[in-house]
């Protein structure tokens, strides 16, 4: 809790937030938003939330920025000139914002102090998790054990939410007919993108190592910051890197749409399947200790650790497939013919 570092990073974050919503160019806004996400990640590392910072670095500063740029590529880049008559809307918005801020500030006076070890939030349930996780599950990373074992039900529905988001994007954007009823011309292309040797070579060299690192993050999530979500997003980002540096069609040849959706299904099915397997063996849903009957040479404590690894793999596969699918749909506007 170094308050000088806190203060300086917070100042930069506020400046970035102001700049993001004030600039007139949408591409600049997207890139400043990437910088804002990265500064948030630094702040969370300094506060001790390394898992959250890892996720924000891969999701916020990585995939979110790419999705914004892909959406801006398909629509306009400049913010339109504001016509008159918006002053009343802005005034009402300002008043609403000020009233909400004032109410929140009045409520803030009752908060416990910042970084106090004896706040009520840290006294009731989390001491049990901190002291008992090694004894119950033999997993040192407390966040992973709470996420995948003690609160595994939440995480299953979170994976389902990601899957539903991918389905929603397909439902909104995907077009199969050759001619479209309400089609607008494609984005303004400045020059033909000639294949660049350096970028293609470096991308081809780096992608296997990025994927290996993503698999390491998934597998080592029990002992270090990491886990299923971070590894899945990094795997998806490696495919997006291939799509950006090479041709869009080439990545479609590797990871076709059918295979992608199949992988997304397999991920969610793996998670629910492990829970159902526990049910079939006679215990509660997602109670991994009963898996010691099926897995060879494990006792009930290690079975919980292995069950967690299984569902983390399922989450990683599902998140990778959905991130790739959302990027493909946004960047090609649903037609899957050409992209960035």
């Amino acid at each position, binding site marked *: 809790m170094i308050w000088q570092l806190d203060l300086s990073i917070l100042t930069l974050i506020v400046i970035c937030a102001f700049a993001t919503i004030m600039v007139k160019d949408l591409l600049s806004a997207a890139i400043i938003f990437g910088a804002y996400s990265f500064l948030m990640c630094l702040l969370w590392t300094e506060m001790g939330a390394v898992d959250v910072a890892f*996720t924000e670095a891969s999701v916020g500063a990585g995939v979110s920025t790419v*999705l914004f740029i892909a959406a801006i590529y398909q629509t306009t880049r400049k913010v339109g000139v504001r016509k008159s008559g918006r002053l009343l809307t802005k005034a009402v918005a300002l008043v609403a914002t000020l009233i909400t801020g004032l109410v929140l500030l009045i409520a803030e006076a009752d908060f416990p102090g910042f970084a106090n070890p004896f706040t009520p939030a*840290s006294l009731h349930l989390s001491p049990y998790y901190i002291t008992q996780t090694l004894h119950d599950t033999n997993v040192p990373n407390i966040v992973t054990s709470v996420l995948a074992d003690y609160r595994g039900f939440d995480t299953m529905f979170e994976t389902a939410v990601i899957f539903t988001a991918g389905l*929603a994007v397909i439902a909104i954007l995907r077009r199969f007919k050759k001619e479209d009823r309400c089609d607008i011309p494609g984005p303004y292309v400045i020059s033909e993108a000639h294949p660049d040797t350096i970028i293609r070579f470096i991308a081809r060299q780096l992608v296997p190592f990025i994927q290996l690192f993503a698999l390491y993050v998934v597998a080592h999530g029990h002992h270090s910051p990491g886990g299923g*979500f971070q590894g899945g997003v990094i795997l998806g980002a490696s495919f997006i890197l291939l799509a950006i540096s090479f041709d869009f069609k080439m990545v479609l040849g590797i990871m076709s749409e059918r295979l992608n959706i199949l992988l997304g299904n397999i991920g969610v099915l793996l998670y629910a399947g492990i829970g159902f397997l526990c049910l079939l063996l006679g215990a509660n849903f997602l109670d991994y200790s009963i898996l010691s009957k099926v897995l060879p040479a494990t006792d009930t404590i290690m079975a919980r650790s292995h069950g967690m690894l299984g569902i983390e793999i399922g989450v990683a596969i599902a998140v990778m497939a959905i991130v790739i699918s959302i990027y493909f749909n946004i960047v090609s506007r649903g037609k899957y013919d050409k992209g960035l």
Partner: protein
Amino acid sequence: MQSIISDYNYWVYILLMMIGFYAMLAKNNLIKKVIGMSIFQTAIIIFYVSIGAKEHATIPIIAHGHGAVEAAIDVAHYANPLPHVLMLTAIVVSVGTLGVALAICLGIHRRYNSLEEDEIEEQLQ
């Protein structure tokens, strides 16, 4: 002075939330509204994470050596992991929401050929 140091963090988080909230309400461009929504979400995440922070505490990963000796684990020595877990879910859900929001923006642009809110309202009438 002590109360200011222990409180100014919360003021900055409330300021960030209000920046995102204002952008969602008052900005004309749809993508700016989506950016405002993202700023609001990350401000809420930072508020929750700050609840779990403790002074002189280390990250919530128990560094245990090899061997079965379980030393006494001091609770005040580790940061509170429960807000971290909830915020992991929040970040991943937020990227899903961002994908759907951008897809809706693309759909609106395809139909109305504009991303400005007032032009879309004119075309709706």
